[in-house]
């Protein structure tokens, strides 16, 4: 069997195995039947969810919140990362606090988000932006410190202005770090937005999940969670592939 087919076979068998194990668990009555519905029920709920227009309106809201938050976080993170990376005294002054806040779960800043942006989608976007900001800023800051000094000297020897230095020397050298930070940040943006929807919202895919939980519509909740995971993992894999292609392109 060729390498590729072997890999595919392993993936297929693994998925089948997981599904079989779940179905066994569901039928074993080890757990209360209500919380482990049979695969068939989940499949039915999944199909029903795909056919429900409300799913797509909620999904659109969440995607918009994530997109806006992510873009703002990337822009802000790159800016702050460059500032901190380029100025050692700033890094020493602010760095430890950035690290500390980065390690705190952003959902605790939920009241501030509500104050500044109200109860609608903007506050969820803000939480997403806050969550995604730190990986980008920290990765970029680290990369700025590692920029090849030769490149900087070449730029200076051409008497490049500040904006030219940023555009032609710094930014291109930072692209891999930015993409890496974005990859880490996207996952956190998704989490930040969806948890915000769970706490306070009337729409979005996170809100849908918790609404189904509150009404004990468990198969539907499984279906929504599966959809969320497919989209989140898919988005992560996409950016991962972008990163690999970037790396390969530069290696040439």
């Amino acid at each position, binding site marked *: 069997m060729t390498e590729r087919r072997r890999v595919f076979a392993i*993936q297929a068998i*693994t998925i089948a195995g997981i599904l079989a194990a779940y179905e066994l668990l569901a039928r074993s009555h080890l757990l209360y039947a209500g919380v482990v519905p049979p695969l068939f029920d989940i499949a039915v709920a999944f199909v029903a969810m795909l056919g429900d227009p409300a799913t797509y309106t909620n999904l659109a809201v969440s995607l918009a919140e994530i997109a806006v938050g992510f873009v703002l976080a990337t822009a802000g993170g790159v800016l702050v990362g460059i500032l901190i990376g380029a100025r050692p005294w700033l890094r020493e002054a602010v760095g430890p*606090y950035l690290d500390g*806040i980065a*390690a705190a779960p952003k959902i605790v800043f939920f009241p501030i988000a509500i104050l500044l942006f109200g109860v609608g989608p903007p506050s969820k976007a803000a939480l997403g932006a806050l969550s995604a900001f730190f990986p980008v800023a920290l990765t970029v800051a680290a990369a700025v410190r590692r920029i090849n000094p030769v490149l900087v000297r070449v730029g200076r020897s051409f008497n490049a202005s500040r904006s030219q230095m940023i555009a032609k020397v710094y930014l291109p050298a930072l692209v891999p770090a930015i993409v890496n930070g974005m990859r880490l940040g996207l996952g956190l943006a998704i989490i930040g937005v969806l948890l915000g929807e769970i706490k306070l919202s009337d729409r979005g895919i996170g809100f849908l999940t918790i609404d189904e939980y509150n009404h004990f519509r468990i198969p539907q909740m499984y279906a929504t969670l599966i959809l969320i995971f497919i989209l989140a*993992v898919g988005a992560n894999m996409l950016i*991962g592939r972008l990163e690999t292609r970037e790396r390969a392109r530069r290696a040439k």
Partner: protein
Amino acid sequence: MKRFAPPAAIALIVVVALLEGLARAGLIPATVLPAPSAIAAGFIDIARNGDLVVPTLITFGEALAATLIGVLAGIPAGIWLARSPAFGQAYESWLGGLFAAPIVLLYPLFLVVFHRTNATIIIMGAITAVLPIIIQARTGMLHVPGVLKAVGQSFNATPRQAFWLIAFPAAVPSIVTGIRLALIYSLVNTIGLEFLIDFGGLGRVISDYYAQYDIPQMYAGIVAIVAISVALLWLLDRVERRLRPA
């Protein structure tokens, strides 16, 4: 100048003074961000209520337990994936995708299956912790420098020796990075989960004070978390530097 006033301390003093001034001028509503002096008073209050030391230990205990499970399960798994190329390739993209997936969103599911106990928090933390360790262990094993392998071969090393004396030690720095990531991620997830389900250590403390509208105490708890994270990162940095060969 640096010896007498480290920039980080200066920054803190500046920010605290600024916030105190804004709060007293009434520009920031106390219901959302109390003055630093009020937060400090809140800090004393929660310490006196016994809501500081024990919950911190509980939270750390949960995160450490989760990381330990991650280490015990993740390192062998990562090594196995490195030595079985077909399986390694099969699961590579899945692991990468799962790494930043919103696992914490599964909490309603875990609540109904494992109930509101420390076990739920630890298990969810363990899932978050095991992923970076598997990825880093596999990466470390796959990138043993050719030079080292050649040296082993020139000594006619047995497979066992090649693993324990060359490959594994070469992978250790990568594994240590993975453990570091695992500890940080499991701590973040643990606190976030405690906040969401109102159970456990520091996250629960913050959630309780939030529910009772004791806002200064809530922020004191958040400050405690940030301070502990800073301390933990500093500690990890020292440990990592000691473990890394010069």
